[in-house]
């Protein structure tokens, strides 16, 4: 039966190639959507993990990094650094600004840092040094055709692009990095806020610990000594942001991914159905020769599995191509194809799709009348 299935595939090579291409495309759609969803969560996670520090301090009750507003009192830096085991506390803050001409405005999350928390994946230029320096994400640079040295004017204050980074985007928007000098000058020289009190000058603290200090035990000490703050490990805070992303995008992405599974199953089913239909005479001949239904059905399922097996690497390549194209043209989004969990899930989904899909046409085989062998074509 194996040889028979292989011979069928080879003989109908154009049909098989089209089938593999269509199933591969269906798999790529599933992988692409799943990868897009994973990318959203991974971006949220990386946005926290890339900042550095062994612990992150937020305003009490704030358990997210990007989407939540956290404001810490100025004196906490001294309070934290006074605790034994804490090497340094690095201030950070962030706020959204809208950038671009009217009709093409796009949110930019300005990340303000001092000694830690800046851009980690520079692909061009240098780090922020002066008050007018800004490092922007490649997605932002591409969207507004910015290059090193170009101005980025926010509320009348002109920053200059000194570096371009990759992977600094989350929640459909990109990050721009400036330092505290830049923030102060922006406030003083522009009309970005009427009052310094409305500016979240200190949002979070990235805490660097002395060598050998256990982050889990010292966080309790920090929370006890410094009032109105919460302390998280970067992994915990990142996980909170991932969960927030899952809450936000999970439902629609779930619908789309499940719909793509359904589509994949139907595509496989209908294609195999059409294929089986086209070969009804062969099945009639096999029935007349004495092949029982289960053997013929097994050969169709085997053939489907072979085709799906061939389509899988193609789907993976197409999915990879989608990821590369998106990464190149729209780096603000990330499509994660090579994720073990996601791949296994997709693989499982595809296996279920193909099995269910190959069940659809079995009815045709069951109903094929061996009498048709007496008909002359």
């Amino acid at each position, binding site marked *: 039966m194996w040889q028979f299935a292989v011979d069928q595939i080879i003989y109908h090579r154009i049909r098989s190639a089209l089938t593999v291409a269509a199933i591969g495309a269906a798999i790529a759609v599933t992988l692409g959507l799943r990868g897009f969803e994973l990318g959203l969560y991974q971006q949220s996670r990386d946005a926290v993990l890339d900042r550095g520090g062994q612990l992150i301090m937020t305003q009490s009750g704030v358990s997210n990094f990007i*989407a*939540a507003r956290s404001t810490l009192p100025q004196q906490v830096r001294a309070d934290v650094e006074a605790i034994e085991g804490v090497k340094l506390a690095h201030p950070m803050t962030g706020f959204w600004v809208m950038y671009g001409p009217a009709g093409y*405005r*796009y949110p930019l999350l300005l990340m303000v840092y001092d000694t830690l928390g800046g851009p980690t994946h520079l692909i061009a230029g240098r780090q922020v040094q002066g008050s007018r320096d800004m490092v922007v994400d490649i997605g932002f640079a591409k969207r507004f055709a910015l290059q090193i040295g170009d101005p980025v004017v926010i509320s009348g204050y002109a920053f200059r692009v000194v570096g371009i980074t990759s992977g600094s985007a989350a929640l459909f928007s990109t990050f721009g990095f400036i330092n505290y000098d830049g923030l102060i000058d922006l406030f003083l020289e*522009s*009309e970005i806020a009427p009052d310094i*009190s409305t500016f979240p000058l200190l949002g979070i603290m990235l805490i660097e610990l002395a060598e050998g200090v256990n982050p889990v035990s010292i966080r309790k000490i920090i929370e006890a000594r410094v009032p109105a703050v919460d302390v998280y490990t970067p992994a915990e805070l990142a996980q909170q942001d991932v*969960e927030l992303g899952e809450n936000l995008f999970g439902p629609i992405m779930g619908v789309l991914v499940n719909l793509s599974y359904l589509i994949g199953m139907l595509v496989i089913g209908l294609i195999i159905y059409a294929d089986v*239909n*086209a070969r009804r005479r062969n099945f009639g001949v096999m029935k007349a020769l004495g092949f029982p239904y289960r053997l013929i059905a097994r050969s169709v399922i085997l053939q489907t599995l072979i085709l799906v097996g061939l389509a899988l690497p193609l789907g993976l390549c197409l999915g990879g191509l989608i990821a590369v194209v998106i990464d190149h043209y729209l780096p603000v989004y990330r499509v994660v194809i090579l994720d073990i969990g996601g791949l296994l899930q997709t693989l499982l989904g595809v296996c279920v799709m193909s099995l269910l899909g190959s069940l659809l046409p079995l009815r045709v085989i069951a109903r094929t009348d061996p009498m048709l062998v007496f008909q002359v074509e």
Partner: protein
Amino acid sequence: MYKWLWQTLWQQKTGVLSGAGSVAVALVLVVIMDASFVGESRQTIAYIEKMRADVWVMQHGVSNMHMASSYVWDWKLTKVRQVAGVKRATPILYMNSVFAAGKRNWFSYVIGLPEDGQRAGPWAVSSGKAFPARGEILLPQVLEKAAGIKLGDMTRIGDHSFRIVGFTRDTFSMSNSIAFVSFDDLQDLIAVSGSLSYILVDAEEGVDAKALATRIESEVDKVTAITHEQFLANDYQIGLLMGAEVLSIMTLIGIILAVLIAVFTAYLQVDRCRRELAILKTVGFPNRTLYGMMLLQSMIISLLALIFTLVSVFILTPLLTALVPMINLVLTEAILLRVSYIALLVSLLAVIPPAWMVARVDPLTAFKV
């Protein structure tokens, strides 16, 4: 001639219908993505749209609400109220934040309403109070199920706790669910005083909104005043820009998938009637006539696919919305028109391989057994 085509398609109706069905499922994916994108974009501007203030006043330099922050000195409210043509001016305080409900966090617009701020409050309440007092919060009804919360439960924004006193309708979306709290509570939360975020201005009857906005900007220092339509357009544009590219890519993938399936179906059709095509060639039908038939066949399959798609999405959209209330699906004429264009494009692209096959059919096949 065309009767032959029609009869052939009819004889092979199962294959044709299954092919059209497969194309349809690819198109359904495109439509659902489109509908969710439009639904989400529309929900982004739900608050602005429902408030319908003639003019929106905000911090100078700010021109939208979504993901923005705006702070205006509260004394400017009095100034705005004094501008000729202003019938009513309602201030709100606003921030993007995350609130905890159930065991999860939710991204949200938090709108702080002053005591007399009913004008800027929820437009549809499904249960409980319609206006929050201090320490109280109104949340989207969708979360009642999704987060497993009920009236009287506590929720948290930052280090402030609120009692849930009301659930509102049409206020949930992925990117900006709307939570209503009192102005004072939000002021405490943000740790600002003497500021507000936006002023919703209702004009006297007969006053032109655009002229009023210009007047406000000239009479009140360092504010931006925008008409309702402009403000709406600004936010909608951001929503569109943030997702349009993803949608374009997904649509392109959907089109490729649909074309592949359509090509496959057309290929099978031609493969099945290769002998008949040879006979037609033998009796003298030129290739161009056969190409025309392939085009017609492709268009019939695409038309069927389009019909299946439309029927499916009209069934699926309310069904999905009922099953997963957290997603907003909106079918618009533009979406339907777009999928029709896509179906046409699919039919045109899918005709190329069968036409190539037709050109290669050897008339001698007609003489073979």
